[in-house]
């Protein structure tokens, strides 16, 4: 059985809060997306009666900053959710240590997404 060469007494624990923040952000982004979905639905319903308000609504949705923001939120929530699924059940046999790598990898993907959204507009 091989252990790490530096004993526990001389190893400080780092990265404790990454897991906590990922969890909290998942909850907050979930709440935000739910609220946004409800608001979006209500707006679409209203716009069926009042075409003018549709244009206002769409202008907001196509605003580049808004697009980046919503991409980040959706992207994070979706990818983190996938990460959670993969990790909680143990698909691909992934265990704790790479979780941080996954989170980081995720954020990189998100940024890419965001940049694409920016360019696209």
């Amino acid at each position: 059985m091989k252990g790490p060469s530096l004993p526990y007494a001389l190893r400080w624990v780092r990265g404790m809060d990454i897991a906590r923040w990922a969890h909290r952000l998942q909850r907050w982004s979930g709440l935000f997306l739910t609220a946004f979905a409800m608001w979006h639905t209500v707006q679409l319903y209203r716009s069926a009666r009042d075409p003018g308000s549709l244009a206002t609504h769409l202008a907001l949705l196509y605003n580049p900053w808004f697009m980046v923001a919503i991409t980040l939120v959706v992207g994070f929530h979706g990818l983190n959710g996938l990460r959670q699924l993969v990790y909680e059940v143990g698909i691909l046999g992934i265990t704790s240590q790479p979780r941080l790598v996954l989170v980081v990898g995720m954020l990189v993907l998100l940024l890419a997404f965001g940049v694409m959204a920016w360019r696209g507009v």
Partner: protein
Amino acid sequence: MGEIGLEIIEELTADILILGGGGAALMCALHATDQVPTPRVLLVVKGLLGKSGCTRMVQGGMNAVLNSEDSLEAHFRDTVVGGAFLNDQELVWLLVTHAPRIVFELENRYGILFDRDEYGRIHQKPFAGQSFNRTVHKGDLTGIEVMERLREAVWARSSLVFLEDAQAVALLPGEEGGVGGALVLDHRSGHFLVVRAKATVLATGGGPTFYRFSTPSREKSLDGIALAYRAGAELMDLEMIQFHPTGLVCPGSELNGAVLEEGLRGAGAVLLNARGERFMVRYDPTRMERSTRDIVARAAYMEIMEGRGTPQGGVYIDISHLGRERVEAMFPGMVERTRMAGYDLATGPVEVCPTAHFIMGGIRIDEMCRTSLPGLYAAGEDAAGVHGANRLGGNGIAESLVFGALAGELLREEVAEKALPRVDILYARDAVRELMDGLSAEQGESTAGLWAELKDLMWTHVGVVREEAFLREAIRRLEGLRERARKLWVGPTNRFNLTLMQALSLRNALEVAWLVAHSALYRNESRGAHFRRDHPSSWEVPKNLVLRRSLSGEPSFEWRSPRMTRLQPEEVKGWSERS
């Protein structure tokens, strides 16, 4: 006196009161409640159940005859020869005959899993002083495996009640000169309790922590032996204290004195003095480093005292020649511990020195775990007689688990017919007042300071090598320390007061230390772990030193023959040639 309360708040009753929370105590509790009708058992633990104490810290393993090529007679013989024939041979016979069934029980009943060899058979490793490799183990942390499973079993058994952070401070007289229970200080609430019990079991685990270097868990202070002495029970062979030869030298840290287990020497580690010599060749050329603990400890001590030790006062143990990976695989816990202390067992020498480890002496018991006082029992390190003058590695945890189990089984039957004794409540109140007298909120001596003085004095004067003049001076100075310990500063409250706990422990340790010094002076021979520079040879006939507190308050000493019912010294080849 501030908030220090003198009131006895509660009175509890139990069929069996067990003082302690280690291997002997938990086995006793579990075995007492294994069958119906179940007696009411109460455990009173100084720290946390199953976590404090030394069974937990066992790194080596437990001896038991499991192999058909081994024999009970061989285990018996090894133990009695190792004990220099001071053992009570009936107790030794109980140890060796019950150890195998205890191993089966630990595995099948409590879910412990010892290491297996490549054929799936239980692995038994070699240990010094034994004629056969019979030590069962789990890696190098057998104690953790055993105690975690026993702890689990006790927590799961709803009929067992226990108080943690509670310390028995006096035994209470019952009827007809026996013991009827104990006075307990509950550190969580700060209140005193009286516990009435049909049977009281001392299983506090000895623990000679009154030396500058010692291995036991830090809360130990020979409470059981001190309580038994004050109650008037017979004690035996207190001078027999085992110094483990390889304790970590780590000055300035509590890690100082922490033990590096014997398996190292069993696996081929060498001991070197500061000159790089394997000095064991001068003390035991046939067995070298695999000699018994007393010989190796004395050898290391002499090397250090004669100036061939390291600047920090130690010698070196080196097992790195086995290769880094093998050492890491065989002793992962110890490798880690040495790295914590600034060394590396896997790649180089580690500084070690003898360290006080175990007290073979203690409360005299018979084969029913009965002490000389009715209603009082003892099991484990608190008891005397099993190991004689020196304990073999692997027999300590065996003793605790075997005799704890036996005590539990015997008491289950005994208390069924007994009535709950009355205790003298006035005695209890006086005991509280006497105890708290001198534990002041405003002024007194420093507990930490007196502990340090006690440890230094015992190390230099009642240590590995003893001499009459030093022992007499030790007795004189210990009396001075006891006088000064009558007034200690503990601070304003009883509630979870560490200084108060250390003060109570100090008084117990001082009491027993004084008895140890007396016993060491009386025994003017060298035998087993007890070495007298002025009397280096052993008597022809082995004798136990039994002592008891007389009515005047002074101890009275008596020589008695050990029960040599099965093996005589003459039957062991080469015995008479040993000095």
